[in-house]
């Protein structure tokens, strides 16, 4: 195993360990507050209002392929879909999910079905509530726009992998007067979301949805583990930069290589 592999595996194990420890600590000391993210506060309100007003929520999980690097954002979108479907299950008009990938479309249908089954409300499930909107970036955006206009949508949650085409979806949401909470793992997409979404989620906020929508202790623990490890990485990067500045980087690498088999 090379040095990068050892560090990578150690980092994943450390992350896993921290999540377990922080989840156990959270169980013993409940009620610890997370920092306020306005997007999630507005989303919680929007879910409540949609249930009361009989309007629909739209969750779009993007077009990230599950076999690619974008799968994490897509899984986060599915997790949000599950939470929202549970929260809005008593509504007359259940949430609708759109995606731009075949596998994601199946998983979004399965997520909705699973959420209703858990609540004993299988009758709420309809196959058309999990739709494949299109297979190319623009066909996906254009396929999503009619849903926003025609389905009495009061709030749109866009979490997954999106590119700049997401601006067309946000523009349609703005025109129909519905709220948009949106986040993506794609950097140009984030810049577009900052300009076009009413409540953009920037950086790792995309992955924080579960913790803010009450998905459980492990979501909160993973968020706190992320914060701790980010600090650790910042210290590591600054130390590495200083070592490089003083010409000590090669010495450290030689020392580390000496420990390897």
């Amino acid at each position, binding site marked *: 195993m090379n040095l990068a592999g050892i560090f990578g595996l150690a980092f994943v194990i450390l992350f896993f360990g921290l999540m377990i420890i922080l989840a156990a600590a959270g169980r013993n000391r409940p009620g610890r507050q997370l920092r306020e993210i306005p997007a999630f506060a507005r989303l919680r309100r929007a879910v409540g209002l949609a249930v009361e007003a009989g309007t629909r929520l739209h969750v779009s999980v993007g077009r990230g392929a599950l076999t690619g690097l974008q799968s994490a954002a897509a899984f986060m979108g599915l997790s949000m879909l599950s939470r929202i479907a549970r929260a809005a299950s008593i509504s007359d008009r259940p949430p609708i999910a759109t995606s731009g990938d075949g596998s994601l479309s199946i998983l979004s249908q399965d997520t909705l079905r699973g959420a209703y089954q858990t609540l004993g409300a299988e009758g709420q499930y309809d196959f058309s509530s999990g739709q494949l909107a299109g297979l190319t970036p623009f066909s996906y955006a254009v396929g999503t726009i009619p849903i926003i206009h025609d389905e009495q949508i009061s709030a749109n949650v866009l979490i997954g992998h999106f590119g700049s085409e997401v601006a067309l979806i946000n*523009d349609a949401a703005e025109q129909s007067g519905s709220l948009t909470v949106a986040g993506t793992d794609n950097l140009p997409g984030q810049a577009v979301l900052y300009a076009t979404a009413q409540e953009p989620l920037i950086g790792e906020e995309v992955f924080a949805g579960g913790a803010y929508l009450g998905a459980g202790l492990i979501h909160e623990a993973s968020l706190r583990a992320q914060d701790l490890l980010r600090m650790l990485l910042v210290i590591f990067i600054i130390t590495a930069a200083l070592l490089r500045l003083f010409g000590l980087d090669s010495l450290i690498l030689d020392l580390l290589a000496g420990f390897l088999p």
Partner: protein
Amino acid sequence: MRTPISTAVAILVGLLILLGYFIPLEPLLSLRVMLLQWAVILAAFALLVGVVNLFRVHWIKVKTGQPAGFYSFVLIVALGLTLAIVGYYGPTSAPSVWIFSYIQVPVESSLMALLTIVLAYAGVRLLHRRLNALSIVFLLTVLVVLLGTAPLLFIGEAPVLNLIRDLIVQIPAVAGARGLLLGIALGAIATGLRILMGADRPYGG
């Protein structure tokens, strides 16, 4: 029994792929490649299922005479024609390439052009929606980078703007992007680990 079995299979496969990524042992590597190949084949089938879902949703819209039913009818006809032509002549044949070059590319290019207008308008609306220091910095940066990239009317290239653009693109933009990527990477690892622990189950488990 469905839940524990699907969860156990998902966790086991996830762990094998993860270990195969870090530990260069031949059996693990081969297993990882094989499982990923299976995933790619399943994704291709999922694509077909997705297209069937698309057809069903639009067919119901046509059948029930919904307001946008005409567009659904156009979609179904276009889908049928494309499938028939590409299926009969092959994906690299002249008729298939014609459909791609003279229908899909122009339509998507038009949408790209529309996107530039939407983005310009969104930039102006941003000041109305969220008037704060960050929004002003965002818009000023966009303006400087745009003016520094495109040749200006009657002036041509402006060396000062080019210099400022290069400074922005090479230093603060790269630093900011790395910070964001770091956060996204940590979030992605956390999501992956939650799935490996069975806390998140986006597979019907």
